């Protein structure tokens, strides 16, 4: 009876050890993968950022956030009618929000939004444009 229990335990211990070995190997494989691929992955993500040398460094890339894509699509649609190409057509209403800091104890002054009267750079385009968004504010 004791021998049977001992043999059963030995089998169980061997299986347990085998699984522990597999787990340990995968753990080391992942650690080394992180060491060898990590710098490339981080460089790739940072190449998409506005400021790749930001401090503290973070893995979050604003350009890859679906919420930003959605907001950008909606803004472009509101401004120019096309979510993909965007633009700022006369007479359009564009909802936007802004967060700003004021020193403690000072009353926050409402911000003022100014739309500049931008003339297109090309000669043909500048002659063709008749209406400016700035005229509709």
């Amino acid at each position, binding site marked *: 009876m004791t021998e049977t229990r001992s043999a059963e*335990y030995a089998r169980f211990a061997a299986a347990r*050890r085998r699984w522990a070995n597999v787990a340990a190997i995968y753990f080391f494989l992942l650690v080394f993968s992180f060491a060898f691929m990590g710098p490339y992955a981080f*460089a790739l993500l940072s190449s998409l950022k506005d400021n790749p*040398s930001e401090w503290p460094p973070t893995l979050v890339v604003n350009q890859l956030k679906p919420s930003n894509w959605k907001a950008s699509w909606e803004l472009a649609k509101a401004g120019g009618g096309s979510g993909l190409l965007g633009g700022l057509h006369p007479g359009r209403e564009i909802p936007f929000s802004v967060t700003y800091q004021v020193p403690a104890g000072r009353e926050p002054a409402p911000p003022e939004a100014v739309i500049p009267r931008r003339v297109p750079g090309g000669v043909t385009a500048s002659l063709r444009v008749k209406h400016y968004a700035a005229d509709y504010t």
Partner: protein
Amino acid sequence: MKKPVFSRLDEKLAPYVLLAPFLFTLIVFFGYAFVRVFYFSFTEYDLFSAPRWVGLRNYIAVFSDMDFTRALKNSLTFMIIVTAAQTVLALLLAIVLNQRLRGIKFFRAAYYMPSVASSVVVTLIFIWFFQRQGVLNFVLTKVSEYAWIILLFLAGAAVLQFLLVTWDKARRIPVGWLEPSYLFLSCFVAFLALFLAVRFGVLSPREVPAKDIVWFNTTRTWPKFLGKLAFPIPLGAIMIFNTWTTAPTFMLLYLAGLQDIPRELYEAAAVDGAERWHVLRYIIIPQLKPITFLIVTMGLIGTLQMFDQVAILGGQAPLESVITLAYYVYANLFPSSAVPNVGFASAAAILLAVLTLLIVLLQRRLVEE
């Protein structure tokens, strides 16, 4: 039956014909170039006027140049540390990768990435990592913040391991103090407990000022207790990323060697009750001896000739902290805003070649013994 004369001639000529392209390259681009460099090393020559024989003056000038002494010291330090580090790391990686597991091909490809990428790209990524406000200083700051939690994790895992093994031993179950399954369980439980404690604010990392280690633009040396033997910190940074890029190539050689070790040896070791350490010490390392010789030889030659990473680093680090013999030769051959000093650079190149040859011969003698 006697073979015709032409047939016999063909047989004798065939190897030379097949070797001809390689021999041509060897003779023209290595043999002839070496003889020319050897000749120039005894002359004063600036590429514009005819060489003028000066005897041993260039060699004397090289030995009395402070930059040569610095380059020699940097090259030897670099050679010893990087060759040792990349050989050990390559062996370790090969042992980990020499498994029949699901997804192992992905890991093999992933580990080989640093060797595939261009040296320029890798160096630029690392220059960016080693900036004062770079990723490495950020990681070191985080390690410093979480240092006591990491220590707590290690202590917790050790206590759990002790309790589990003691429990089994009390029940007369034969387990070792480093039983792998319990080790895994202890680490997992300790990690989970501390993760939850930090997540819910029971424990919090200590506040430390951000690490501001200057990795490149410095002449400081490390470790201080070695005195004159300490190496410059910028050279240490190059050592880190040079090891990172070369170890995977050598890993492939070790992996091929590991797959050639007969399975019977492992089976015999298992029957004899050998532990993992014994398998490594008495089977793997002796069986891989010829490959280790090849890897160490290639490592010694490669590290003594290291040039590109110093050149790409450029003005990021003071030259005296990173200059190596290969870069010293180049800097004298094409000095900025000065005429080339071909004779002087040739003398330094010949000394580098002799040094490489002597070190490889010494290594071979040591291995034979």
